[in-house]
């Protein structure tokens, strides 16, 4: 782990946005079915060295299956797994340079915390002195030194999580796999531990693959996120890009709240510019911007990108959409107000910073919505 620290900054910079360097893990066209259920369907993915990658999706989407295939705990029906540039598809788990933090932690109940952490090193016949030194260092790093002689049954949930992390990290794996490692903890502890996890990953230059169903967690810690749905990879990208430029309705809806507007057909805007017909009127569209294919099927607008103005404003020439409606529901959510607004074309969710001039709107108040032209996102489905 010390050796990798030097190479870290450059690796990280590349990982953020540069072209793929040597992938720490690559899977190609990976498929796995259980009986009639297709758990993974032709998934291809590259995880870069030093990157914190999250697999995000609802339960049953195949994310844990993918993790287990990388760990070697399960065998794919088709496709290949390459770890550190070497084919690993048929390697048994003990020959793969990866380590896993299990959802249930899977700490060995008959061993002390220290022996749990040392388990992997002893199996690899690391000399006793070096083993002890590395175990001590990792236990200090994960702040479990004072728990060394306890048994897993005597640990709290957060402590177990740290031990499980230490037990995996001490082996200096090329890839650290994390299967919902914070899933069993309460919200406050989750937030605290995920910060620690991210700091540890940065410090050691670890490559991490995190499986989670918690979008907030994924957005907070990841360099990149892959969104899985029903065994297929929907979209891969850095958190900000996934949030700002979702490609599908599923991604748009899974990462944060979103207003989805169906496209009814093509239309002509003012001055004959190409536009899309929606229940709310025509929306400007540039075919050139569409990456191949025809017009989008659905449009998306984030609730925070919509403006509320108390009085009807002038119809803009700049392509903004102006809609009149009525507040149906107003919810105070701390930093923001969340409104449900009914317009003739349908309902909208609108989030506004709390404490705006004029105070929060109340149910029943007529309002005007301004949807800026730049707020529209074109979705493939």
């Amino acid at each position: 782990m010390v050796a990798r620290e030097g190479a870290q900054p450059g690796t990280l910079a590349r990982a953020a946005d540069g072209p793929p360097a040597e992938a720490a893990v690559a899977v190609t066209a990976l498929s796995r079915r259980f009986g009639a259920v297709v758990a993974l369907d032709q998934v291809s993915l590259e995880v870069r060295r030093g990157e914190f990658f999250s697999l995000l999706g609802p339960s049953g989407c195949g994310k844990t299956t993918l993790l287990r295939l990388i760990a070697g705990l399960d065998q794919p029906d088709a496709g290949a797994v390459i770890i550190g540039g070497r084919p690993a598809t048929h390697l048994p788990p003990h020959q793969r340079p990866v380590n896993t933090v299990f959802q249930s932690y899977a700490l060995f109940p008959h061993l002390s915390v220290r022996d749990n952490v040392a388990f992997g090193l002893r199996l690899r016949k690391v000399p006793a002195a070096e083993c002890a030194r590395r175990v001590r260092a990792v236990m200090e790093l994960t702040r479990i030194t004072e728990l060394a002689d306890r048994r897993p049954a005597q640990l709290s949930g957060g402590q177990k999580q740290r031990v499980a992390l230490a037990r995996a990290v001490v082996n200096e794996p090329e890839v650290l796999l994390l299967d919902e490692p914070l899933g069993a903890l309460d919200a406050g502890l989750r937030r605290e531990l995920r910060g620690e996890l991210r700091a540890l990953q940065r410090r050691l230059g670890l490559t991490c693959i995190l499986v989670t169903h918690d979008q907030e967690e994924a957005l907070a810690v990841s360099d990149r996120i892959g969104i899985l749905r029903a065994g297929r990879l929907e979209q891969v990208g850095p958190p900000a890009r996934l949030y700002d430029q979702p490609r599908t309705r599923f991604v748009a809806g899974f990462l944060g709240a979103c207003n989805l507007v169906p496209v009814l057909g093509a239309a002509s805007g003012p001055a004959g510019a190409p536009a899309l017909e929606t229940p709310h009127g025509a929306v400007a569209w540039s075919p050139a911007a569409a990456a191949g294919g025809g017009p989008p099927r659905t449009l998306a607008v984030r609730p925070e990108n919509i403006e509320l103005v108390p009085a009807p404003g002038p119809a803009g020439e700049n392509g903004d959409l102006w809609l009149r409606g009525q507040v149906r529901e107003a919810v105070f959510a701390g930093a923001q107000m969340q409104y449900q607004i009914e317009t003739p074309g349908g309902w909208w969710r609108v989030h506004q910073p709390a404490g705006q001039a004029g105070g929060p709107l109340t149910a029943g108040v007529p309002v005007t919505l301004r949807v800026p032209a730049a707020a529209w996102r074109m979705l493939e489905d």
Partner: protein
Amino acid sequence: MKACGRSLGGLGGVAAALYLFLYAPLAVVVVFSFNAARHGQHWEGFTLQWYRGLWEDATARAAVGTSLGLALASTVISTVLGTALAWGLRRWTPRWRARGRQALLVPVFVPDIVLAAALLLFFALARQGAGWGQLGRDTLVLAHVTFQIPYVTLVVGARLAGLDPALEEAARDLGATPGRAFRRVTLPLILPGVLAAAWLAFTLSLDDFVVSFFTSGPGTTTLPVLIYSSVKRGLTPEIHALSTLLVLAAVAGTVGVVLLRRRGAVNSAP
């Protein structure tokens, strides 16, 4: 629990009668083994002469040796095979696992006498066909292992079912081969179950009469077979003495297990 006192009062008498019923046979055997009278049921004074006679009886000593050796050998084999079977079964798909379990339950449900007759026939045909299967120590061990395996597998399987499958996966993930994962993680964790299974197998072997009666040869008389043939010739104080030893073994074994379990429960508490 408000009815506790009253209902116990009524049940207490019935329970006492039932305990008497359960222990009457054991008691007469033990008592008559110390009775100086060779015939009849009159008490003619306390004696240890029947035990002395037993000690000097080469046949009885040989039977004890045969039974213990047989129980030991068959227990070792069946515990290894049964544990491996339970462990392997866990990795099967649920459907095949259910079938495997059924295949294991059939031997449990088949009456002793049917298994005994089937093995007698099997060994006879093996002698005819392959010249192997002379009734003796080997056939006894084979027969005993056969009825022990399902019990071992069921007991160990119950223990394995309570084990998080991720533990073994974690061991493999940390660099253990399947064998090492079993030895260093699974086996220590299921050891109480394995020992309980071995104890059960040992007792089943020691207790078995019917299968041994059919599959033992002239030179390999087990203790129960010896008791049976003696009883058939007529009851003697020596048989009571021999049986008393078996009763004492059962008492010692049972109480020992209870005490061990109690100590284990105290130790494993945090």
